[in-house]
């Protein structure tokens, strides 16, 4: 099964490399969304520093949700999804592979680019470090839950908005612990509790979401 | 129950009596009338509209089925 996994991830990465503009869209959305907040609430540095963790996290959440709708759609359209589901153990493999490639293409770049956005909000270095760490821990959760949403809404007209509606409530714990970790560090407190909880959420999601997503794929395709 | 509700003893509080001295006191709710009645009225409205809507839906389906049966 790990062979299938590697093949599928490699395939998605190669496809993304061919369509680099499409792959860059989530980061572009993220940048635009982040920039809207100072425009909306005013440029005062003190306030921006305070809202920065929440703003970055919410933007990351929305960027993940918006980019996840296409996760299975292209494969469904050209028939390769059905082929992959026929392979024994294929359902679980494709679910995990899709979540992994989504994270590699969206979550990881976001976490890597986070320091730049931290500087936009004049965040302290320690806070920026916490931001990167919380995003590294939290964006896989978003990719896993987003995959569940994509499988549930496979082929439906309402697509992205419906997905956001059904999945965002489930992402709230990650949002709270992730943004909370950064806020704690910014306030000079230890973020260890937040990281532990975020890690627990990640493990919990990593174990259960693929099973649920595989079931959702079966529901959607049979 | 109905008889006791009407009885008012001005100035004294009996344990087995309603606590309001008058109807206007009851509606005023100690100054919080808007909030209390705002809450109760919306609740009553929802719990009246919902059963009616569901009953109408049910009636519509029954009529549809009856019409189909009549055609057979």
């Amino acid at each position: 099964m790990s062979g299938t996994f590697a093949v599928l991830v490699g395939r998605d990465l190669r496809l993304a490399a061919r369509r680099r503009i499409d792959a860059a869209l989530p980061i572009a959305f993220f940048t635009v969304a982040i920039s809207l907040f100072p425009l909306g609430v005013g440029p005062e540095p003190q306030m921006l520093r305070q809202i920065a963790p929440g703003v970055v996290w919410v933007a990351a959440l929305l960027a993940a949700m918006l980019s996840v709708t296409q996760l299975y759609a292209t494969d469904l359209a050209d028939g390769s999804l059905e082929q992959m589901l026929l392979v024994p153990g294929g359902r679980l493999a494709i679910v995990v592979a899709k979540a992994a490639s989504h994270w590699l293409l969206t979550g990881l770049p976001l976490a890597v680019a986070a320091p730049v956005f931290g500087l936009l909000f004049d965040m302290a270095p320690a806070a920026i470090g916490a931001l990167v760490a919380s995003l590294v821990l939290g964006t896989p959760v978003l990719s896993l839950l987003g995959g569940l949403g994509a499988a549930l809404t496979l082929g439906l007209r309402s697509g992205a908005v419906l997905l956001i509606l059904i999945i965002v409530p489930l992402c709230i714990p990650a949002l709270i612990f992730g943004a909370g970790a950064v806020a704690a560090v910014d306030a000079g407190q230890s973020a260890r509790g937040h990281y532990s909880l975020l890690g627990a959420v990640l493990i919990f999601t990593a174990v259960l979401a693929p099973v649920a997503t595989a079931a959702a794929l079966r529901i959607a395709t049979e | 129950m109905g008889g006791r509700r009407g009885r008012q003893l001005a100035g004294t509080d009996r344990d087995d009596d309603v606590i309001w001295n008058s109807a206007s006191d009851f509606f005023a709710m100690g100054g919080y009338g808007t909030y209390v009645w705002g809450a109760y009225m919306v609740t009553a409205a929802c719990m009246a509209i919902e059963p009616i809507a569901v009953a109408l839906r049910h009636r519509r389906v029954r009529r549809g089925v009856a019409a189909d049966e009549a055609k057979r």
Partner: protein
Amino acid sequence: MNTSWRFFRFASPAAFYPLAGKLVPWFAAAAAILAAAGLYLGMLRAPTDATQGDAYRIIFIHVPAAWMSMLLYVVMAFWAAIGWAFNARLASVVARAIAPTGAMFTFLALWTGALWGKPTWGTWWVWDARLTSELILLFLYGGYLALVAAIDDPRRADRAGALLAIVGSVNVPIIYFSVIWWNTLHQGASVSVAAAPKMAAIMLQAMLLMTLAFWAYAFAVIFVRARAIALERDNQAAWAGDAVGSSPGRTGTTT
């Protein structure tokens, strides 16, 4: 073996329909009586609170509505899961019937919570743990209703909804805990919508009666909706024609 076999007879929509029809008036009557008793105690007999004045009386609908909203979500997830696991159509129908009522109670909990918060805390909304969790529960109901409405095929809709409801139920404790965590960290213990006033026995009795009243109401409304949905899905089936009693000489069921 005998009793369980007879019990499963009612697992078919055809058997459920007339049974539910007979029970609905009883549930409705129970709801009315319990509500009358609860309101009598709560609105006419319970004493005024020292700190909150008479504004606290909203508790007699806020708390029952909140409890019902949470209970119905779990019950909905349970029946949806049964319907999915055993391919039991009636269970799926009941789950779909529960959702709108659960969402309504969630809305009422939020509405009454806001009206309770304004005189006691000064703002129409407080981001305390309980109200925020209730808001998220509204989103969970909304997500379920939106998902099943977006899927045309009833069986796929039932199953997808069941999965979503199960996932939601599993997540509710986690979400609730994270919201409590969030609330205590950011705002401290001072912000919490009306911790209930120290409850005299009569207040608890009134709240209990109102909860039971809402429970009976929910049964009545959900059973009628389930009948409607069952009939909608099986509208060509033989039992449907019988149930509606359109043929002469057959006794149909009322409502």
